[in-house]
């Protein structure tokens, strides 16, 4: 249960083609994350799978069955929305019960499932409250509860954590990951946050302008990005991309080096890049140093472990790890 296949799917709004022909298979039990900048079509793709948007061309197969023309409620999918989309005048219990009530399930069965979902989501004490009386995290849990009780073949998450504050986001991220380990149901998760993508995904689908740039495990994407876009999008802080003379030395149009693969030194090193410290962000465990004056890349970001005593205006010398340099050709593709 829960394999989703997109076959030559095209979506047009009027004359604008949002998603050119696209093929993608999401395996059963997989946690797939669609990630990309805003407006890249990742939410549209999710809505096509859910059936909230009609495909212009192509097919959506769920468990091998053509679901392209099937109504959203019959596809056996559950969706969690960014705005939670709870029914404001219903209590938490009624919210969670709603899909079962619509399916005509018996009261007893409903209650068993509600209790089970509430217990696993720590909502037992809040069942008789209304959504307006809950915090953002609790609301999102109710939305997840409403999805769980349907026992869907796949969960769809549309940027579910964007409305939460940073601390809650980390907590909910773990909860959703744990839920996936426990339920082993297919999950498709849309986000623009590459940290969420890296930490949660079994497989990441990087999208830009409706086109899949790369599909792979988080580490595949990190170690061998297929092109400049993926290289710049995955990893935090962003990969430094250098063009010009420095790239020519490596026989490439562009070279990329991640901030964590650069050694920084205040003493002169032979053959190193020279630069001036702009801003140094001291995080305790790491120091992010933004360096100006390196040819072909301004500013260059360096991530140094621990506390590095540099300040604005200091001259520094940078040595990249040779093995970690990514090379790209003129079209931006990996060499």
């Amino acid at each position, binding site marked *: 249960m829960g394999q989703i296949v997109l076959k030559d799917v095209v979506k047009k709004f009027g004359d604008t083609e949002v998603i050119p022909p696209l093929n993608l298979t999401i395996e059963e039990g997989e946690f797939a994350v669609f990630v990309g900048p805003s407006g890249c079509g990742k939410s549209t793709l999710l809505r096509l799978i*859910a059936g*909230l948007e009609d495909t212009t061309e192509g097919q959506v197969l769920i468990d091998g069955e053509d679901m392209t023309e099937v*109504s*959203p*409620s019959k596809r056996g*999918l*559950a*969706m969690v*929305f*960014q*705005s939670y*989309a*709870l*029914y*404001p*005048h*219903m209590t938490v219990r009624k919210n969670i019960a*709603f*899909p079962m009530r*619509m*399916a005509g399930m018996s009261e007893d069965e409903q209650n068993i499932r509600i209790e089970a979902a509430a217990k696993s989501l720590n909502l037992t004490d809040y069942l008789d409250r*209304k959504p307006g009386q809950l915090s953002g995290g609790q609301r999102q849990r109710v*939305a997840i509860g*409403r999805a769980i009780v*349907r026992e869907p073949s796949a969960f769809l998450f549309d940027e579910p954590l964007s409305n939460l504050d940073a601390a809650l986001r980390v907590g909910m991220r773990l909860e959703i990951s744990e839920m996936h380990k426990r339920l082993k149901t297919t999950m498709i998760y849309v986000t623009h946050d590459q940290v969420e993508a890296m930490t949660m995904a079994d497989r990441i689908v990087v999208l830009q302008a409706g086109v899949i740039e790369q599909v792979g495990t988080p580490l595949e994407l990190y170690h061998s990005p297929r092109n400049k876009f993926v290289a710049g999008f995955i990893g935090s802080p962003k990969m430094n991309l250098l063009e010009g003379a420095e790239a020519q030395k490596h026989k490439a149009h562009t070279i990329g080096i991640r901030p964590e693969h650069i050694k920084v030194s205040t003493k002169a090193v032979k053959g190193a890049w020279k630069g001036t410290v702009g801003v140094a962000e001291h995080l305790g465990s790491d120091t992010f140093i933004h360096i100006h004056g390196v040819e072909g890349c301004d500013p260059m970001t360096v991530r140094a472990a621990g506390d590095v005593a540099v300040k604005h205006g200091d001259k520094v010398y940078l040595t990249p790890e040779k093995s970690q340099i990514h090379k790209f050709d003129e079209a931006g593709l990996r060499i």
Partner: protein
Amino acid sequence: MSSRRLPRLLQAPAVILLLFWMLVPLGMTLFFSFIRYVLASLNRPEWTTPSIDNWRGFGNYAFVLDSKDFLFAIQNSLLIVGGILFLTVFFGVMIAVLINKVFPGQGIVRVLLISPFFIMPAVNAVLWINMILDPVLGLNGLAIEGINSVIASMRDAPVVGWFFSLWPEFKPISFRATQTSAYAVIMMVTWQWTPFAVLIFMTSLQSEDEQQKEAAILDGAGKWSQFRFLTLPHLARPMAIVVMIQAIFHLSLYAEIEIVSRGNGNKNLPYLIGEFANNNIGAASATGIFAVILANIVAIFLLRAVGKTLME
């Protein structure tokens, strides 16, 4: 203390003005309701000037309570207000949901829908009673005549003729008659005030959360369930507002009742006050006090109901 004095001083003129605005008419009404006060009397000319010497106690109230029209007027006030409220909310919701969809000519349709609200009540009443509800010249009479002639022609038709020959000849309903004039008023005021309800419901529908609807679609809710479980609860607040505002307005209907039947068989409290006020100001004032009490009872019920929905 002194820090509060200045703001209070500055508020005072408005508060005092409002107090006078309210208290002077109410006080005068109360005073008149306890004295004998008529506009013209040949036998007792001293009753034509308001004076404490003509004290009547609760005599005016007893007189009003005893008059045959009083209970009828209260009943009728409630029937008319209740009828209009139910119909405007019902049609208001239906029309608002209907025109909330995007369709060509939407702007024009909306303007046209609002237009009855801009017609003067008296004009509205004249148009309805003469052009639509009149049993001879109005649409009412013409429509019944048309139906009758169709039935008459069907009586000679083959196969089904026998069925139509069983039908009686329809008679148009006269809306100026004792039993029906209240319905005429309900109809015309409903027509005029439905746009108000539509306007308020429409703005409310536009603020309905689309993601909630999509979630409901995925949860398996059909069109009816979406309306029943999402749209109707969403409209509870605007409904409360529509009901409250209209109740206040329609308790004091006058023009329509005057024009439809001059109060024959169809009086509400304001109309009764008007009738008494032709001569007997004392009785009119006493009725006025009853009207204030009735309005307050209605208001208390409404505020409770409305307050409850607004609190949620």
